[in-house]
């Protein structure tokens, strides 16, 4: 049995197709992330799972029940909203217990649940306050408490952290992760923040324009993006995309790289058979900043190319240096002690083992 199964789900608003056939399945207890740029249809999909939006086409199954046409209250879900949506006229306690009260939960059980949830989220001192007397982070906790009190088969989160400041966001992120590990309930979580997606998710669905671009584990999506959009969206700073000519070299294919006023030939690791069709044509080399580093002794067989440094941005543990390759700005992650100066040539090591290649026209991955 799957915890959630979405089959060919579509949504149209008037004449606009917002979701174009979504298919996905998750196992019980999994943490699913829906991630994508603004307007790609994440919230719409989540609201359809919740039953707040009608389904134009397709089926949604929760557990072994087809819920496509059920009311939200009959779907056995709980939801945390981006704006928290706490009932302003009720106290924190009433906010948490409202759903239980409607379900006619016995009084002592209700009290016990509220106490348990309040303890778990450390909001016991706030129980008698009204939402407007709470800080942003406290409201966020109460919103989660309201969902936790319900003990549903799926939790739905719609960008629950996006209204918090950066520090609190990181704190709450690990709290949510810990909470999931503790309660073990299936979660569907919407975000447009790829770091949240990477850190929280068991599985990630990367969406764009109402379609799932790629569905897989965070590491898989990071290492094996299916297309240039996914590759660029996941990871920060994002992957560099350098258009290169492909040539037949002496021991296999090489990419022609123009850097620091000179032309270089960068050998391609073997195993990417599709590339042979591109000899004499252009491909887009996708290489992450951490694969462009200062020269180090322990990787003797990687190619080194001198690059002209244009920008230097220290982040603390690493320093981001921007070089120009084939006319494109390329970010490299070097050790702080290794950085040179702006305007100077710096030898950089190209670790091609994790490089990926894309067709410049279709933006699809070349395997």
């Amino acid at each position, binding site marked *: 049995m799957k915890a959630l199964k979405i089959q060919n789900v579509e949504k149209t608003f008037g004449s606009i197709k917002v979701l174009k056939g979504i298919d996905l399945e998750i196992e019980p207890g999994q943490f699913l992330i829906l991630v994508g740029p603004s307007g790609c249809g994440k919230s719409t999909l989540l609201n359809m799972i919740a039953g707040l939006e009608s389904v134009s086409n397709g089926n949604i199954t929760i557990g072994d029940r087809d819920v496509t046409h059920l009311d939200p209250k009959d779907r056995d879900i709980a939801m945390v909203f981006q704006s928290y949506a706490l*009932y302003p006229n009720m106290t924190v306690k009433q906010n948490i217990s409202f759903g239980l009260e*409607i379900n006619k939960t016995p009084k002592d059980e209700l009290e016990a649940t509220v106490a348990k949830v309040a303890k778990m989220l450390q909001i016991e001192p706030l129980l008698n306050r009204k939402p407007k007397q709470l800080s942003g982070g406290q409201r966020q906790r109460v919103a989660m408490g309201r969902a936790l009190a319900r003990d549903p088969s799926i939790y739905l989160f719609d960008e629950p952290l996006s209204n918090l400041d950066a520090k609190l966001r990181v704190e709450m992120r690990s709290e949510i992760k810990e909470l999931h590990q503790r309660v073990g309930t299936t979660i569907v979580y919407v975000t447009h923040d790829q770091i949240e997606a990477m850190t929280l998710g068991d599985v990630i669905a990367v969406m764009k324009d109402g379609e799932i671009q790629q569905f897989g584990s965070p590491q898989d999506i990071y290492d094996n993006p299916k297309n240039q959009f996914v590759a660029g969206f996941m990871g920060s700073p994002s992957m560099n995309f350098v258009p290169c000519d492909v040539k037949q070299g002496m021991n296999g294919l090489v990419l022609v790289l123009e850097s620091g006023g000179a032309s270089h030939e960068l050998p391609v690791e073997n195993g990417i058979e599709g590339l042979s069709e591109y000899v004499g044509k252009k491909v887009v080399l996708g290489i992450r900043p951490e694969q462009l580093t200062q020269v180090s002794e322990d990787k003797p067989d990687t190619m080194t190319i001198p690059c002209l440094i244009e920008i230097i941005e220290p982040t603390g543990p690493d320093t981001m240096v921007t070089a120009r390759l084939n006319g494109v700005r390329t970010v490299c992650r070097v050790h702080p002690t290794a950085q040179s100066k702006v305007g100077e040539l710096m030898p950089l090591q190209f670790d091609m083992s994790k490089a990926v290649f894309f067709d410049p026209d279709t933006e699809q991955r070349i395997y």
Partner: protein
Amino acid sequence: MSLSRVLIYSLVLLAAVFYLLPLFVMLMTSLKDLEEIRSGTLLSLPQGLNFDAWSKAWGTACTGVDCNGMKGFFWNSVLIVVPAVIISTILGALNGYVLTKWRFRGSNLFFGMLLIGTMIPFQVILLPMARTLGFLGLAGTTSGLIMVHIIYGLAFTTLFFRNYYISIPNELVNAARIDGAGFWLIFFRIVLPISVPIVVVSVIWQFTQIWNDFLFGVVYSSGDAQPITVALNNLVNTSMGVKEYNVDMAAAIIAALPTLLVYIVAGKYFVRGLTAGAVKG
């Protein structure tokens, strides 16, 4: 104090005097006897506190053939205003709730048509409404008049509530739906409790409109069932012998007193409600 301050305050003062002077004259006149009115000027103060004109206006002044004062008509107005205000406010709140949180196909068209309702002058509906009341067997009854006020006020109350509720985030309603609440429960437990400012606006607006209404009252009610505005008109127009200005003034103040009171008691909520913005969760 800077010059501009002085200017502003004098302007405000002038405006206050301008609006308060008529009330002052009415009050003073109502406290004089006819002899004083004849001999003194409009602005001269009465010689003592003389409430004879007030008791006459309330209890024994003639409004046409009957001479029972305003008191019966005052209660008529109360009997008309209270149900009309309550019902039109409740219906307006429900309309606004449906139009913003449970939208249906054509709900915008429906709202547009309601908006036109706010622009229809009283006179336009007089005859059709008279026919309708006759058809319903409500012609000349208090319930008929109440119904007219409810229907006419509905466009306004709906507009108030709709504009207020549009600023309440839909997520609030969605959260309640997920918690298992339905249409009515969400209305009574979540939406209505945060509607106090706009309820006050609606009540004040409807109260003043209906209490001060003359046209509907004079057309759709008759005899003993007439509201106080119609009675006031009759009282002033019924003159046997000398014109009793003091009684007229006292009656006019009695007729205006409830609306004055409502503004004094709830006026600050009125302003607050009109300017109330989004309800932050």
